[in-house]
């Protein structure tokens, strides 16, 4: 049986570069919050991103999957402006952020919160200082106001019951607690977009399920747009509203979980089948 040609489940819109006049993507879209077109990035001779076209849906949980070393984290760092692309455009709410200077980039980053793979909590600070850090850096709030917001988040993320949590320093926290403190720090300034870099890496199955629920609940309760980098297929189909697959530097699949499961792209099939979600050569969930 011959394999049909691999193609994304959604058709990319015409690429803006080279077209005369302003790009049709340079306006705020009610559905798509982040739009990426023709993104290229190389490190030396290594061409990591080879023309990424990607749409991130507003208020939804968008999962980007892909094997190790495929450039998922590189792509995420581009979304937040931590890396500059060699070519291509990124629009966030209709603004082309690639052309931003440092000051504008600072303003852009306030829209984002990022949950790092290993939480990236500041070792020199306790839990409260870590969570409050963005507020202390950005605003002149009283200690009471800061503490109120920190404690509110600790409650919402089920951390308030942990004995002495406020004064604990990162090495005293479990993996799951660190992730939640990292999430609290990302959420404290009420971002519009939350980026998660492989949030379940290194966690046991129960902690993984808890983190999945936390991401889902955060998306629903806070109404944020979530972008999750993952290679955990079970988590991906548990929490994802949209699934994109990064393979060989391009997005080869971009659609709903149902569309992703129905995709015949060999790389995605291999991912899905080896994770046990579907039987080999079957189209439905196992």
């Amino acid at each position, binding site marked *: 049986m011959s394999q049909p040609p691999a193609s994304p489940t959604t058709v990319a819109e015409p690429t803006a570069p080279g077209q005369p006049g302003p790009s049709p993507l340079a306006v705020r879209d009610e559905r798509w919050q982040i739009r990426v077109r023709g993104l290229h990035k190389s490190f030396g001779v290594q061409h990591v991103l080879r023309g990424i076209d990607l749409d991130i849906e507003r208020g939804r949980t968008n999962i980007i999957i892909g094997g190790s070393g495929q450039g998922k984290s590189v792509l995420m*760092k581009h979304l*937040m402006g*931590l890396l500059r692309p060699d070519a291509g455009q990124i629009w966030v709410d209709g603004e082309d952020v690639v052309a931003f200077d440092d000051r504008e*980039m*600072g*303003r852009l*980053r*306030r829209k*984002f*919160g*990022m949950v*790092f*793979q*290993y939480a*990236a*909590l*500041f*070792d020199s600070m306790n839990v409260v200082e870590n969570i409050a*850090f*963005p507020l202390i*850096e*950005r605003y002149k709030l009283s200690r009471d106001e800061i503490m109120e917001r920190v404690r509110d988040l600790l409650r919402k993320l089920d951390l308030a019951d942990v004995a002495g949590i406020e004064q604990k320093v990162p090495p005293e926290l479990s993996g799951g607690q660190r992730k939640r403190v990292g999430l609290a720090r990302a959420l404290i300034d009420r971002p519009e977009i939350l980026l998660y870099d492989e949030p379940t890496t290194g966690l046991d199955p129960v902690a993984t399920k808890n983190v999945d629920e936390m991401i889902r609940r955060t998306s629903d309760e806070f109404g944020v747009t979530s972008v999750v980098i993952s290679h955990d297929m079970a988590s991906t189909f548990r929490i994802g509203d949209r699934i994109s697959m990064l393979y060989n530097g391009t997005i080869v699949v971009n659609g709903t979980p149902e569309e992703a499961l129905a995709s015949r792209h060999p790389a995605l099939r291999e991912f899905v089948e080896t994770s046990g979600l579907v039987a080999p050569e079957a189209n439905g969930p196992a």
Partner: protein
Amino acid sequence: MSEADSADSAPNPSAVERRMRGVLDLLALPLRALFSYFGDHALMLGQALRGLGYRPFRLRLFLEQMNFIGVGSLWIVGLVGFFSGAVSAQQAITALRMFQQERFVGATVGISLAQELAPVFTGLMITARAGSGMATELGSMRITEQIDALTTFAVDPIQYLVTPRVIAATLIMPIMTMVFNVVGLIGAYLFAIYLENIDLGQFIEQFRFWTDPKDYIIGCSKAAVFGVTLSVAACYQGFNVRGGAKEVGLATTRAVVAGSVSILISDYFLIDAFHILWPGKS
């Protein structure tokens, strides 16, 4: 004439010329690396100083670094200072006794401590203790993405991490040098008076007569420059770590080596500079 013809007629470099170019390239390689090394450090220093120009001024971080570099190094600087003073006195007495001039030991030790021993030894001690600590801390922050996290909060990591360390090291080094001077003189005094039976009045009188504030100004100025070089070397190595724990260890080693070597090299040029500025005093 066709292009091919002109290419054919272009003079080919002779074997000697090619070899000369190869040798020049080979010689240029370390030179290029040296310029790149100093250029990168100068760039980081420039960025750190630029961080002073805008808010917030991060006084708390600055004081924390003063505490870490200064107060934390007090014991080691005092210990090394005491024995350096005592050993200097011992050496000076041995040499001066040949001419029956051991009464000059206070002046000899005082001047050598003020201008040379105190700033250089303090710099080396601070590099070993605080410079290595800075490189390790920043390197660990880099590999655990804490520096990336700062950037995501729109915080300039250079202004947050490097500026307080460089400024603190620059300001604390002269103070620590003066601590070294005082403790070193106590060591020299105890050794000379109680073990070598040097006359107390002569020791103090010769010290007061031959040393003057310029010696201490020279020493403290050098110490401030050493503070800049050691902190920039440490921050640069830590900030640019890539990889894992092994690279953090290597960066720490490089920070100590670079800091120590830069102190000794800059010491030579500073002596020359002060010799021109204050003839006869350096």
